[in-house]
């Protein structure tokens, strides 16, 4: 059974419009990418090509490169991530699925 707490404070949700993976990377992320590129250089085997990090412009690009490198260095970090927001399409699809299940159950 879940414990009940006396003092509970509601935390406001972050609005969905805050999400923008096309945001240009900050100087901080740019340097993070450079640091990983240094590591990539040190891991290159003959014939392998270094990722061209000059093409990494957005946070989405950065996250893909970081995932590739981190999975290589720390594969055990590929855990489940807690979702903070669901895009409206995914939510609608989930709702449709639930509705379909209910209809099936009713028709039985």
């Amino acid at each position, binding site marked *: 059974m879940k*414990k009940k*707490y*006396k*003092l*509970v*404070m*509601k*935390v*406001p*949700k*972050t*609005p*969905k419009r*805050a*999400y*923008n*993976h096309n*945001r240009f*990377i*900050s*100087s*901080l*992320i740019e*340097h*993070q990418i*450079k*640091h*990983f590129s*240094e*590591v990539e250089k*040190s*891991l290159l085997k003959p014939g392998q090509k270094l990722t061209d990090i000059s093409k990494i412009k957005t*946070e*989405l690009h*950065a*996250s*893909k490169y*970081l*995932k590739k*490198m*981190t*999975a290589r*260095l*720390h594969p*055990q*970090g*590929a*855990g*489940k*991530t*807690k*979702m*903070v*927001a*669901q*895009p409206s*399409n*995914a939510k609608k699809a989930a709702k449709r699925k639930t509705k379909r299940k209910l209809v099936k159950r009713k028709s039985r």
Partner: protein
Amino acid sequence: MPAGLDNLKHIVVLMMENRSFDHMLGGLKKDYPKINGLTGNESNPDLNGTMVPVQANAKFQGQLDHDPDHHFPGVDLQIFGGTAPGPGRVANMQGFIKSYATQGSDINASHAIMSYFAPKSLPVLTKLATEYALFNGWFSSIPGPTICNRAFAHYGTSFGNVDMNLFYIQDPILSIYERMVKAGHTAKIYYYDQQSSTMEIVNLLKNQPQIFGSYSQFVADCKGNTLPEYSFIEPCYNDHPGPGGGQILASDQHPDHNVQEGEVLIANTYNAIRTNQALWETTALLVVYDEHGGLYDHVVPPACQSDGYSASADKTGTGAPFNFDRLGIRVPAILVSPYIPRGTVVPGTEDSSGLIFEHACIPGTVTNFFLKNYDQRTVREKNSRNFLTPLTDTLRHDDDCWVFDV
């Protein structure tokens, strides 16, 4: 030793990004006079010479789309108001608007650097700051950017670096995690997920992957009573797609990422500890920011003991070398434990008997607490303040400690 320290088994540090003390918590002074925040009369001149006061109009996102300068020369301008390095110059905290205006902001936009959050806008940070211990005098370690400041949290020094460049560690000084593991203790760095990864310590990820975990593992470790003795948590540094078509938001609070998502991360981290009673009674959580991110703070950073390194004039970009003998700008720092009385404020430079903290206190305190006598570190770290002093003998009743509904 107080019971709070006798019973302490875990120290957790959550390091956020780029917000100054006054920007996040300065508004608390009105209701909590012991907090060294803003009176409302603090101001900075803009490029027209008009004095612009601080204003409680900070926004969660969209106000600082030019990332405010916080590299070494920019912070020098912010602290000294534009007076060139030389004998007798005085720090006056009058160069924040000037610095932001040089980045292409128009006059009105440059005033945003003086904005701060009303306490009700940041319910999580405000709740923790007023319920547990708030440090009035916790400063970033260097008047400079993220990478060198985060290095102080991991190593107690940046090995002479004042910038964002990667440095390979050739010193005998080990990171706090390596020290702990080598001595038979447990320590972990939890990065948010693989798409966000780790910042600054990529050398450790390459050579010591066993000391890393993800945030979901941190939550599982809290639940399963497998939390290491020392944990360092990194926020999510970028927006990216999540599994199953979801969206993961950056939670680091670095401008221009949404500040509310950082509040959610802080609340989740607190809850992960708070909702396991055994863990809650044996853990101290420090929430701290790496540096001020170019945002206004009114407190002049004090001088400090050098860590034995020096950065040359060409590295600092100010025309003068830096001997690591002055701290960076003040940042929010809150210590959470049920052994801390509500409303504890640790005095800083405003009090003649106040205490000064900086990021070298992190490895300093963790090393002293778990490893006792350990010599292979800088004199600055050895002499750094113990941030666990707010823990007392008295355990607060469970009904007297909040839980967040996230």
